[in-house]
C-alpha cells in the first residue's frame, strides 16, 4: 500500500521539502498530485531523519502546500524500453509525444544505469568512416568512442553532426544500426533541422528522438540525456545494435544542474557549477563503449557550445577530461567559408592509434596524419610571422610551409557538408598536399611509404 503525504513544507525553485515521511529511500522517484488531478514527478535528493528533500522534474507552478499530495514509488526514475522505440519521439521525461500509441514496454530500466566494469570492456578499435577528411584522416572516430563537438554560438555544429549521422559507416559490415538523438534545451528550429534531415535520408525509422526544447522546463533537462542513454544501452547491449548517440547541447544540461545545486546552497566550484560536475558528466559519457557479452556498441557525439568560445570554461574543460578527444569548430574557418569549419590543431581523437593502419585504414595513415599535423602547425606559425613582418622575412622553407598551410585549409578541410570521401581519397589528398614540400621534410613518415605513395608528377 503506497502512502500519500500531505506534508509539503517548502517549495523553493526546483526543490521541495516533505516532512513526516516513513521509509523513503535515497534517489527514489516521487509523484506529486496537484489539487486539479495533474501529476508531477520528483526525485529524492536527501533523506534527513523524517524529512526528505526532493527535486522536481517539472515546474513548481500550481503546487499547493495544503492540498497537494506526494507519494513515493519505491524505485528510482525508470524508462520503459522496447525495440518499438525506434522511429518514435519522446519528451525529455520519456513520454511519447508523437501522438502515437503508448509504448508496450519489454521492461523498465533505471535511468542512472550502473558503471561498466573496466575488466568487461572491449577496447574500441573499429574504424568508422564518416566521409569527413578532418575526422577520418586526422581525428579518426572508432566504434564505442565518445567524441564531443566543441562549438560556439553561430557555428554550424548541427550540420556537422547531421553529416556524421548521415555518412557514418563501418566498412565491410552491414550490422544493425540506430541513432538516438537527445535534444537538450535547444530551439525548435535546431531540433527541426535534425528531424527533417533524418526524414530526408530515411534514417528516421532507425532513430529514437528525445526532445526537450528551450521552452520546456529547464529542470527536465537533467533527466533527458539519461533517458536517451538508457534507450541507447537497451538497443546496444540487449538488441545488439550499433547505436550512435547525439546529444545537443550539454551546456544546457550543465546549467540545469547548476540551478539545482544553487537552490541547495552547495559550495560552488568554478563559475558557480557544482564541485561534482565532473563526476556527474562522467556518469553520462562513460556509458559509451563496447562490452563483453554483447555485439552492440554505443558511440557518442555530445555537442556543447563553449561560452565565448572559451575552451577553459568548466563545461568543455571537464568534458575534454572525460571524453576520448574532441572536435573543435573554428570561427576563423567559418568566416573563411571552409566547411565543416574544424579547428584541426586542437582537435584530437585519443583512440585513433589503434583504429588506423594496415587492415583498418591504410598502412601509411599514421605517418601521413602526423606529418600533416606538424606541417600545418609549422605553416601556421610561418603565416603568423608573415602577417607581422611580410613574406620577405621568411626563409624559403617557411614560405613553402605557408603555402602548404593555405592549400591544406582549402583542399583538405574545406569539403562541404555533402561530400562523402573514402579514407583512401582523404589520404591521397593528404599526399598531394604534402608534395608541396620537399620529400626530405617527410621525417614523420617511414621512408618506404614515402617511396610508395609520393605523388608522381
Amino acid at each position: 500500500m503506497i502512502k500519500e503525504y500531505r506534508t509539503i513544507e517548502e517549495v523553493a525553485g526546483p526543490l521541495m521539502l516533505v516532512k513526516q515521511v516513513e521509509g523513503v529511500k535515497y534517489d527514489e522517484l516521487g509523484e506529486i498530485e496537484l489539487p486539479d488531478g495533474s501529476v508531477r514527478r520528483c526525485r529524492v535528493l536527501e533523506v534527513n531523519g523524517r524529512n526528505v528533500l526532493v527535486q522536481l522534474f517539472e515546474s513548481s507552478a500550481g503546487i499547493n502546500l495544503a492540498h497537494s499530495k506526494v507519494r513515493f514509488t519505491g524505485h528510482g526514475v525508470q524508462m520503459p524500453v522496447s525495440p518499438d522505440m525506434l522511429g518514435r519521439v519522446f519528451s525529455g521525461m520519456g513520454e511519447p509525444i508523437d501522438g502515437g500509441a503508448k509504448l508496450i514496454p519489454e521492461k523498465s530500466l533505471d535511468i542512472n544505469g550502473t558503471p561498466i566494469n573496466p575488466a568487461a570492456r572491449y577496447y574500441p578499435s573499429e574504424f568508422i568512416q564518416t566521409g569527413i577528411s578532418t575526422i577520418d584522416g586526422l581525428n579518426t572516430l572508432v566504434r564505442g568512442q565518445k567524441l564531443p563537438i566543441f562549438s560556439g554560438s553561430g557555428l554550424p555544429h548541427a550540420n556537422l553532426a547531421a553529416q556524421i549521422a548521415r555518412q557514418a559507416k563501418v566498412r565491410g559490415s552491414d550490422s544493425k544500426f540506430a541513432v538516438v538523438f537527445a535534444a537538450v534545451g535547444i530551439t525548435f528550429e535546431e531540433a527541426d533541422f535534425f528531424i527533417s534531415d533524418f526524414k530526408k535520408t530515411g534514417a528516421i525509422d532507425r532513430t529514437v528522438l528525445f526532445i526537450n526544447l528551450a521552452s520546456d522546463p529547464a529542470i527536465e533537462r537533467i533527466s533527458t540525456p539519461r533517458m536517451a542513454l538508457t534507450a541507447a544501452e537497451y538497443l546496444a547491449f540487449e538488441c545488439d545494435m550499433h547505436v550512435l548517440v547525439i546529444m545537443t547541447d550539454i551546456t544546457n544540461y550543465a546549467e540545469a544542474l547548476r540551478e539545482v545545486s544553487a537552490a541547495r546552497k552547495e559550495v560552488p566550484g568554478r563559475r558557480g557549477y557544482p564541485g561534482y560536475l565532473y563526476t556527474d558528466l562522467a556518469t553520462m559519457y562513460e556509458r559509451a563503449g563496447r562490452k563483453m557479452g554483447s555485439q552492440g556498441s554505443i558511440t557518442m557525439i555530445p555537442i556543447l557550445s563553449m561560452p565565448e568560445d572559451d575552451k577553459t570554461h568548466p563545461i568543455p574543460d571537464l568534458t575534454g577530461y572525460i571524453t576520448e578527444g574532441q572536435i573543435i569548430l573554428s570561427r576563423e574557418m567559418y568566416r573563411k567559408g571552409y566547411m565543416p569549419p574544424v579547428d584541426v590543431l586542437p582537435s584530437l581523437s585519443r583512440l585513433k592509434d589503434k583504429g588506423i593502419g594496415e587492415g583498418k585504414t591504410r598502412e601509411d595513415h599514421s605517418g601521413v596524419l602526423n606529418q600533416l599535423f606538424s606541417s600545418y602547425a609549422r605553416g601556421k606559425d610561418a603565416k603568423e610571422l608573415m602577417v607581422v613582418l611580410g613574406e620577405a622575412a621568411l626563409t624559403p622553407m617557411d614560405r613553402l610551409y605557408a603555402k602548404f598551410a593555405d592549400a591544406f585549409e582549402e583542399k583538405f578541410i574545406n569539403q562541404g557538408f555533402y561530400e562523402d570521401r573514402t579514407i583512401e581519397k582523404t589520404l591521397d589528398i593528404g599526399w598531394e598536399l604534402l608534395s608541396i614540400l620537399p620529400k626530405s621534410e617527410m621525417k614523420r613518415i617511414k621512408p618506404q611509404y614515402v617511396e610508395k605513395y609520393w605523388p608522381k608528377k
Partner: protein
Amino acid sequence: MVEGKILKVSGPLVVAEGMREANMFDVVRVGDARLIGEIIEMHGDRASIQVYEETAGIGRGDKVVSTGAPLSVELGPGLLSNIYDGIQRPLEAIRERCGANITKGIDEPALDRSKTWHFVPAHVFGDKVGPGDVYGTVQETEVITHKIMVPPGVCGTIVDLVEGDYRITDRIGKIKRPDGTIEEIMLSQKWPVRVSRPYAQKLPPVEPMITGQRSIDALFPIAKGGTACVPGPFGAGKTVVQHQLAKWSDVDVVIYIGCGERGNEMTDVLREFPELTDPRTGKSLMERTVLIANTSDMPVAAREASIYTGITIAEYYRDMGYNVAVIADSTSRWAEALREMSGRLEEMPGEEGYPAYLTSRLAQFYERAGKVVCLGDDGRIGTLSAIGAVSPQGGDISEPVTQATLRIVKVFWGLDSALAYKRHFPAINWLNSYSLYRDRLSDWFSENVSARWMELTGKCLKILQQEAELNEIVQLVGMDALSGEDRLTLEIARSVREDFLQQFAFDDVDGYTQLDKQYEMLTLVFDFEAKAAAAVAAGADIEEVSNLPVREQIGRFKAVPYADYLAESEKIKQEISRQLDALTEKVEA
C-alpha cells in the same frame, strides 16, 4: 559488533545514530545491501560515514553494522597481474560473477581463495625471527618471487614451518612469541591503507629510474624512490606519458592507479600489457603490474580510497626489496572526491572549495615514496617511486591541486597544449619543467653512461633556452636580422626538439630508447653543431648548412633498431664530417 540506524542520506554521505561504541575509520556495512562504508566523523552518538558504493535505495532506519576494523588491503601472492577497484575488490572475478556491469554490495575476496601456491621455507624450526624477516618464498609470477615476511610487530621462534602447496587462507606455520603465545602465519596479511608500512631507515635516492623516454631521462630524470608529477590540460598527453612509464620503467613492480579516469584507458592497459614484453625480463609486462581501477563513473568515495589502496600494495612489494613505481592518474580526481565529501560534511572550504587539509593529505601520499632499508635481518633495500598526473582545470597550473603537489614533488613534467597541437610528443615543456634530481644523479650517469652525458644534456637545456630568447627577436625583426651563429643556434635547437626530444610512443623502435642510444643521438646532434659552427665561422651560408642531406639522416636515426645503432651512427658521423668539410672547403676556395 556495533549496530546503528541511519538518520540521513545525502549522496555518498550517510549519518547513522547509535554508533558511540564504533571507532573512527572503522569499516561499516550499510543497509540490507551491505554496502561498504567508512566512518569519517563522530559526533556523540552519530557517525558520518562515507559509502564506497552507490547509495540509491538507502533510507532512514536502515541498519549500519561496524566491522570493528579499519579499511585494509589483503597482501599476499596473487596481487600481480590482477585488476582491482578502489577498495581492492577483484574486477575480473566480479565480472565472472555479476556480468559486465558492477552491481552493489558485492563481497569478493581480493586474493583467489581456491588457488594454491608452492611455498619454500627460508627458515627452519627453532630459528628466531623478527618483523620483516623473510621466512619463505612463493614464485608469484615468472618474474617476481614473492617473499613471505613476518608481519610488523611480530617476533619469536619458529615452531612449525613446512614446505608445500598452500591456499591463501591455509596456515603455513607457527611462531612462538617470547611470552609463550602462538602466532599463526599464513601466506597473506592485512594492512590498513591509511597507515604507511614501517621500514628500518630512509635513504636519499641516488639512482635514476630509467624510463626510455628521452625528454625524461636526458632532461628531467626521476630517481628510484623519487616523486614526480605530470600536470597538463586535456589532450596534452598525460595518459600516454603515464602509460609509457608503466610500460618501460626499469622497476620490478608497477602499480597503476586509474583514479576517476576513463574506463577505456584501463581496458587498454588490461588488454595491451599482457601482449607486451618487458625488455629486461623478456616476459609479459602484466606479470609485474597491478591495476587499480576506479573509473569516473564508479562511486566517488572509493576514488578517495583508491590511491591509498595502491600505495599500500606498493609498499608491500617495496618491503620485499623490490623497486616499485606507483603511477596515479589522476590525483586531481582524488582531490575532487575529497572536495565532494568535504562539501557534504559542510566543512568550511579552502581555496576553490577544496578542503583546508588538501595539502597535508597530498604530502602524506607522496611522502610514502622513497628509498628505504626494509625491516628484516638481511638489510635489503627497496624503493618506491610515486608519479601522479594532475589535471588542472583549464590547464591553469595556479590552481590548488597543482600548487599543493608542486610543493612536495621533486620532478615537474609540465605538459603544454601548444606543443601537443603541433604533435610534438611527449609535450613536456622544456622551459618550465624541472628535476631536482639532476645534480644528485649526475655521478651515476657519468659512471654508467658517459662522462659527457651531463655536459650534453645540459647543452640541450641551454640551447632550448637560447632558442626561446632568439624567437622573441625573430618575432620583432625577422629572421634576416640574425647573425649566422644565431641562425645556427635555432637550427640546432630545432634538431634537439625534432630529432631528439620528439618520440612517438606507438612506434616499436621509437617508443623506448636505451640510455646509450640516447647518448649517441645527442652526440650526433652536437657533432653536427661543432662542425657546422666551424663552417659558418669560415663563411658558409647558413641555408646551405641547414639543408645538408645528412640532416635527414640525423632525423631518421631514432628509427634505427637498437642492434644496428652504433654502426649507423658511425656512418652518419662520417657523413657529417664529409659534407661539412666539403662545404667549408668550397667556401674557402
